[in-house]
């Protein structure tokens, strides 16, 4: 049956480590959904990627039930994986901490394309390259 959607909540959370603390509690509480059930299901579904940041989209219905889907990790996480980096640079304009190649930027842009408000791979690549530079990661040709 088609249920009435009360709201959609987009969260970035650490896989397998969600708790009722912010941001989960205050973002889902207005929709009166079963927060412990969300936490249990989210942690179970993401336990294989323990500690990795992922994006999850929770659809809350008017009857106070919910569904959620787990999307690809944020761009910065994919960049860190590509550059084998634990943390971005504290001073990205001055201190460069790693580099990635254009094909790596393209691969990440392709992964993220369904989540972005663009269908152009070129603009997606520009966004990914910008995020890389903001983390002190240089983009080699």
């Amino acid at each position: 049956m088609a249920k009435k959607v009360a709201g959609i909540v987009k969260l970035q959370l650490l896989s397998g480590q969600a708790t009722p603390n912010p941001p989960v509690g205050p973002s889902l509480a207005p929709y009166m959904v079963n927060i412990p059930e969300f936490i249990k299901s989210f942690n179970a579904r993401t336990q294989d990627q323990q500690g990795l940041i992922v994006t999850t989209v929770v659809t809350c219905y008017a009857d106070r039930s919910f569904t959620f889907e787990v999307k690809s990790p944020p761009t910065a996480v994919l960049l860190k994986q590509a550059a084998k980096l634990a943390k971005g640079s504290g001073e990205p304009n001055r201190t460069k901490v790693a580099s990635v190649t254009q094909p790596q930027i393209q691969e990440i842009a392709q992964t993220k394309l369904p989540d972005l408000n663009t269908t152009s791979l070129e603009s997606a690549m520009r966004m990914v390259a910008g995020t890389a530079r903001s983390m002190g990661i240089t983009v080699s040709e």
Partner: protein
Amino acid sequence: MKWAQVTVTTSQEASDAVANYLFELGATGLEVKEELPAVALISYFPLDDLVGGHVQNLRRFLDSLPGAGIDAVPAEVSLKCVEEENWSEQWRSAFPPQKIGQRLIITPTWHHITTEPSEILIQLDPGMAFGTGQHPTTQLSIQLLEEAVTGNARVADIGTGSGILAIAAAKLGAKRVDAVDLDTTAIPIAQRNVQLNDVTSIVHLRPGDGLQVLDGTYNLIIANILTKVILPMIPQCPQFLKPDGRLILSGIMASEAPQVEDQLQANGFRCLKIQQQEEWVGMLAAWVKPT
């Protein structure tokens, strides 16, 4: 405990970079609100001496983004104090016990209520999105079930979800209920609810696509799904129904009801009852075996 809610409103282009920076400052998660072209990133930190430094660092980081070729405008940072609340428990207040139809009472497990001898109690904890008893289509189905379930009936529940209708049929006197769902995530949830209501010997859950996994014939088939699924299912129903078997259909929008009625008539069904709640319609029909 108090929390510092730090909200950064920035461009979509800058949102990934800012989100990453918030995590590097120690945020354990973010809520992302897209009000395009702007994106608000809402993060939380324990309210302590470090928060002022985080906000300063964030402002500096936003100022540095044009240097990375990113336009971060509007690049606003706001800070708000949020009191700790019992977020895990608040939602429970939205689920009081509810009476549906003449006899059935649906209640979450944390309410302990006394029922009259004529009343039937179903315990069901709300959670993932399958019938909780709150939705009009579930309520219509239960009202029609009360009329249609006869003692010792064989019942099939197509698209069982939480199992609520299968459990209701069992508690109303059915001797066997075959409950089917295509969504394999629904089956363990339904199983838990069947056990909770002590009807495991009556309700048999099976994953599968609609009527295809049924065997034998039934006194009653119930389908609370969607009209687009119900319409092609109707012609297949007679082969699974006993003579004078009944069919309950729900999940039908009021505007779609005439189409469903026509399909029922075209396949040898007689509409016994049509009930409406809000914009939803439930139907009870009897199959008249051709002589």
